[in-house]
């Protein structure tokens, strides 16, 4: 294994350590979303997926 792979692994582990307390806090304190709340997220994500497919066909 080369040192680039080790460096990348160190960077990702550092990010995980950075995010872990925020994840714990968010999981414990986030309010629950209703199905209409989730639809408000899913619809733009589907639009983005369609847009990316369009971009892929353009390049």
């Amino acid at each position, binding site marked *: 294994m080369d040192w*680039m792979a080790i*460096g990348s692994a160190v960077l990702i582990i*550092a990010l995980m350590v950075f995010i872990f307390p925020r*994840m714990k806090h*968010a*999981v414990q304190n986030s309010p629950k979303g209703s199905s209409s709340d989730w639809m408000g*997220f899913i619809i733009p*994500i589907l*639009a983005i997926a369609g847009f990316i497919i369009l*971009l892929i066909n353009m390049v």
Partner: protein
Amino acid sequence: MNDQNISISRSQESVLATNKVLKNTYMLLSMTLIFSGVMAFVGMSMNLGHGVSLVLSLVALGLLWFALPRTANSSAGIPVLFAITGLLGMGLAPVLNHYMAINPSVVSTALGGTGVIFLGLSGYALTTRKDFSFMGGFLMVGLMVVLVAALANIFLQMPVMQLVISAAIVVIMSGLILYETSSIIHGGETNYIMATASLFLSVLNLFQALLHLLGAFGSDD
């Protein structure tokens, strides 16, 4: 009657404060994006390698971790933010040089695509004024799963897994843009330096994921 006037006055103050955070965030975000682009261009002209890029990312992460939270409440946070965004921009140079050599239209399309997605999501959050705070747990867990998968893929080296990770990053970063914008609108985020850092990271990761997806699926003729 007097209580009602006080309540209306407080509500107006809150709206003004929210608009100020939003305006400052977008102004600082546009300046940091331009600066990051300039630094990426400098890095590309210097033909920086992947090793230097990795070191720059680690230094940026260190500043993000230790320096930014300590300085974000003062004007000292602005140069720290510019340092982080400049280092991350410069760190993009080897990837950009790689795609420029293969198919330059991938870079311009990813750049334009990221701009359209960011503006579309921001416009959506601003016009609907929906509260996306319920997504906090989902987005953070998703981000952690992506990091675990990316760590595993350093050793597994599976191209399909890399594409799945990039697609997941697009979904998570899009969610984070909605989450952060909604947080500013609803008064959850009152520090424009922290809001800019969060939005900048989402835009940068979105751009990289899009670059990878377009590079993998797009034609190279």
